[in-house]
């Protein structure tokens, strides 16, 4: 009992800040989503904004778009990140300059990453210029749409560029701490390298991979900058749609925005639950 008291005492500053700011910040959004917004004379709580948003023509495409880019980018980041980590380990360059270089995208903010992707993949970007120089396309119009496209490839590219090194760092640390003899003895026993990876290493990596996947998924689902800057006009990612409704000149539109904010928060909280579940697994594994 005394240790519980001590624990809570130690946690007080952090919980106070997070509790007050996070919940205090979310509560008005929740109220406004139910049409309670006295500042513009809306005082009757109603579910009609939820009905209207859910029934609107852009909500579902937006939600699906956000889920899609989040899924593809985080799955890609985990797969390629694992590959990069294995390469760093195999070549023994993980602790050398290559390892440090590979981690650079982790510290570059998303806004800059957007600029990088634009410079490379836009219709007059470096890739298009290279394709032109080698005769594959004859004009910018011949270039397939990689940014501002409805599939969100540009947005995914931003998240991949940031996510792959992040996943690689996580996986690299786990692999390095892993008993390498496990892997070696598996190969000695006649397993192919792939089999050894598949049946020996992968199961041990799985908790870290899952938690990294959920973390990246959650981040790219809720983040606003990348889809705002290089997302398609339709469908807009859910956070972008929410933001656009927020800055609508008519303030009575704000509840529509807040409905989307509440949906984003709800999904994010589900992911938080999943994340802490996987983290617990990770701790048991280590």
């Amino acid at each position, binding site marked *: 009992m005394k240790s519980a008291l001590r624990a809570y005492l130690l946690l007080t500053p952090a919980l106070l800040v*997070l509790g007050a*700011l996070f919940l205090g910040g979310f509560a008005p959004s929740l109220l406004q989503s139910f049409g309670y917004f006295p500042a513009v004379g809306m005082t009757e709580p109603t579910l009609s904004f939820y009905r209207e948003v859910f029934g609107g023509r852009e909500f579902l495409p937006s939600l699906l778009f956000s889920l899609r880019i989040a899924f593809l980018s985080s799955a890609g980041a985990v797969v390629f990140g694992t590959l990069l980590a294995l390469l760093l380990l195999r070549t023994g*360059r993980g602790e050398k300059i290559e390892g440090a270089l590979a981690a650079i995208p982790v510290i570059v903010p998303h806004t*800059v990453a957007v600029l*990088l992707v634009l410079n490379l993949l836009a219709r007059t970007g470096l890739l298009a210029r290279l394709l032109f120089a080698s005769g594959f396309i004859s004009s910018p119009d011949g270039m397939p749409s990689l940014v501002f496209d409805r599939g969100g490839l540009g947005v995914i590219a931003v998240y991949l560029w940031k996510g792959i090194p992040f996943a690689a760092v996580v996986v690299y640390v786990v692999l390095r701490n892993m008993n390498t003899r496990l892997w070696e003895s598996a190969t000695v026993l006649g397993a192919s390298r792939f089999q050894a990876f598949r049946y020996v290493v992968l199961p041990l990596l799985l908790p870290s991979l899952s938690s990294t996947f959920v973390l990246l998924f959650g981040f790219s689902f809720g983040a606003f*900058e990348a889809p705002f800057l290089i997302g398609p006009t339709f469908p807009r990612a859910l956070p972008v749609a929410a933001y656009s409704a927020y800055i609508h000149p008519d303030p009575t539109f704000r509840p529509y925005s807040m409905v989307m904010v509440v949906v984003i928060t709800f999904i994010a*909280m589900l992911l938080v639950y999943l994340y802490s579940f996987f983290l*617990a697994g990770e701790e048991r594994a280590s």
Partner: protein
Amino acid sequence: MKTRSPFAPLLLFAFLTLLLLPVLVLLIWSVARSWPWPSLLPAAYSAAEWKSLFSASSRLVPVLLQSVLLAGGVTLLSLAASVPAAKALGLLSFPGKSVVEMLVLAPVIVPPLSYAPGMHLLFLRLGIADSFAGVLLAHLVPCLPYGIRILTNVFRALGDRLEMQARVLGASPAQAFLHVTLPLIAPGMASAGGLLFIVSLSQYLLTFFLGGGRIVTLSMVLLPLVKDGERAAAAVWSTLFIAVSLLFCLLMERAAKRCASSRDTFFLS
């Protein structure tokens, strides 16, 4: 584990090229005056954007100062709140622990858009909207979880036996923390500090909502430049952003190393 085939190094090289080539292109853009389609390299170079960065009207000094003071302050405050919280989560067991763990992790995944508009209303009532203090406080939300998470792992790896020993030998709790625990967790704090600094520096939406245009950080300058397609200016500010982040990370890395080596001497003496 080393392999003799040249395949792995080549693949690694390809990976690094893909990851770093964009940064190189960024550097070229920052000195390009005109880069018309379909040239592979700029038609004309100029240092004009760099010069205008250092001119008075670019507000470079106030922006840098505000960014660094803000991110630095957030880092210090986050660490101060993270250390006790991480100690509780890493070393003690108590009822409701899993719920607390989830709550302190939540802001890593729940986006600022969820709480920024409401936080603006809250801060208006408290009278700290459009102020440095308000933005500082707001940044704690996305930053704290990172600090707590990293330091929880540090405490877990460390255990509490050394601090206990010190207590048994007659040190007060404060002495034990200051002379035993703190030097031991210092490297972890330094690496967490680097991350916290970057997370704070990258916040756009929170700074925008709670700074109300008064608090202008690197992110606040950068997003409109990218949005409005000012490519050369955006490249220059991006380069600056990366340089500041890298510099801070290197400083933290060195601090961590110094802490680690002083810890060794601590053990030896």
